[in-house]
């Protein structure tokens, strides 16, 4: 075992315990470390069942927070984070590979751009409609109840939500798909 965090040991493990870290594709295994292999089939049974019950409500709640942000606490930032949390929970319990099948990493990098472009594009569209940047009243100039502002805020918040959710998930994917070099005895 060449790899420790002892102060005397300067070098990283290059060709160290490759046999030791072979099964850490599952972040749940990472977090609940030292799980013996024979457990894994039934180990997370309760967590899996509850996760299946909870996953859809969390997504629905995220959507509620996203689109109810005009009327109550909430908005794109919170909704994006909650949406990301649902998938992070999924990854923690079912493993990162399963989550990546459900929501591929390539989509995320596209969605990150789409979110920001949705926001910026709304602003540019307002300019093209003859107003200032992000002057939502140009969307519906005739409205007496500021319908343009409502539409603008909804679109922009949606852009924020998409950008935040995909960025947070992307960051999580990047961290979780790395293999820890530290042996479990360090705990």
């Amino acid at each position, binding site marked *: 075992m060449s790899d420790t965090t002892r102060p005397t040991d300067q070098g990283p493990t290059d060709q160290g315990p490759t046999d030791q870290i072979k099964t850490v594709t599952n972040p749940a295994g990472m977090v609940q470390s030292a799980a013996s292999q024979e457990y894994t089939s039934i180990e997370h049974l309760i967590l899996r069942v509850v996760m299946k019950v909870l996953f859809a409500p969390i997504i629905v709640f995220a959507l509620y927070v996203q689109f109810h942000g005009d009327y109550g606490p909430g908005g794109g930032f919170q909704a994006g984070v*909650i949406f990301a949390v649902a998938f992070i929970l999924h990854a923690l319990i079912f493993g990162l590979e399963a989550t990546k099948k459900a929501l591929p990493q390539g989509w995320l990098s596209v969605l990150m751009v789409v979110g920001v472009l949705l926001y910026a594009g709304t602003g540019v569209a307002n300019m093209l409609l003859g107003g200032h940047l992000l002057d939502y009243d140009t969307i519906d100039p005739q409205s007496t109840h500021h319908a343009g502002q409502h539409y603008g805020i909804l679109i922009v918040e949606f852009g924020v939500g998409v950008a935040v959710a995909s960025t947070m998930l992307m960051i999580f994917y990047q961290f979780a798909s*790395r293999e820890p070099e530290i042996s479990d005895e360090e705990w």
Partner: protein
Amino acid sequence: MENDTVTLAEAATLAIDLSLLTLLFLVAYQMLKSRHLFAVVMLSGIYSLLSALFFVSLDAVDVAFTEAAVGAGISTVLMLAGMLLTARREKPLMPGRAPVAILVVFLVGAALMYATLDMPAFGDATAPANAYVGLQYIERTPNEIAVPNIVTAVLASYRGFDTLGETMVIFTAGVAVMLLLGAGSIKGGRQVKDVSDDGEAQQ
């Protein structure tokens, strides 16, 4: 207490605020003391939830919501992942570091404490921060935006450009993490071996 009427509700709020702040202090102190990084990360989740509770007490429901979702949901998981990839334990404090740090910290703290003597009172409606721009938002939102949640109106409309910038910062941070950890592969990089030669050289 002659002139100002302290109601029961205000006294209760004061008690709740004080207990929350005490808990915040204790948790922060324990985070400073503990060398077990797993415990520190868990405590940071508790710290976030406590501060979210305190935000509710200060009427900032949107902020509390965000802090609870981010602090308990994302931040803790990311820190956990970061900790798993780096180190589980912190080394003991180097002797000689603490006195300098204490000196700097107490100087800064004393200066800030001195500055609070001139601060407007807590909850003062006429404080410069509250009387002008903030009040304008409250007065104008019904006429100009017509959205019940003033925070959303200010966030997405009045200060929409600001929020665009914030979104860009988040996007940039995501790209930075991708570049640092993803190793250029859209399929998700595995462990990178490009540094092992240097590691050998250092030994």
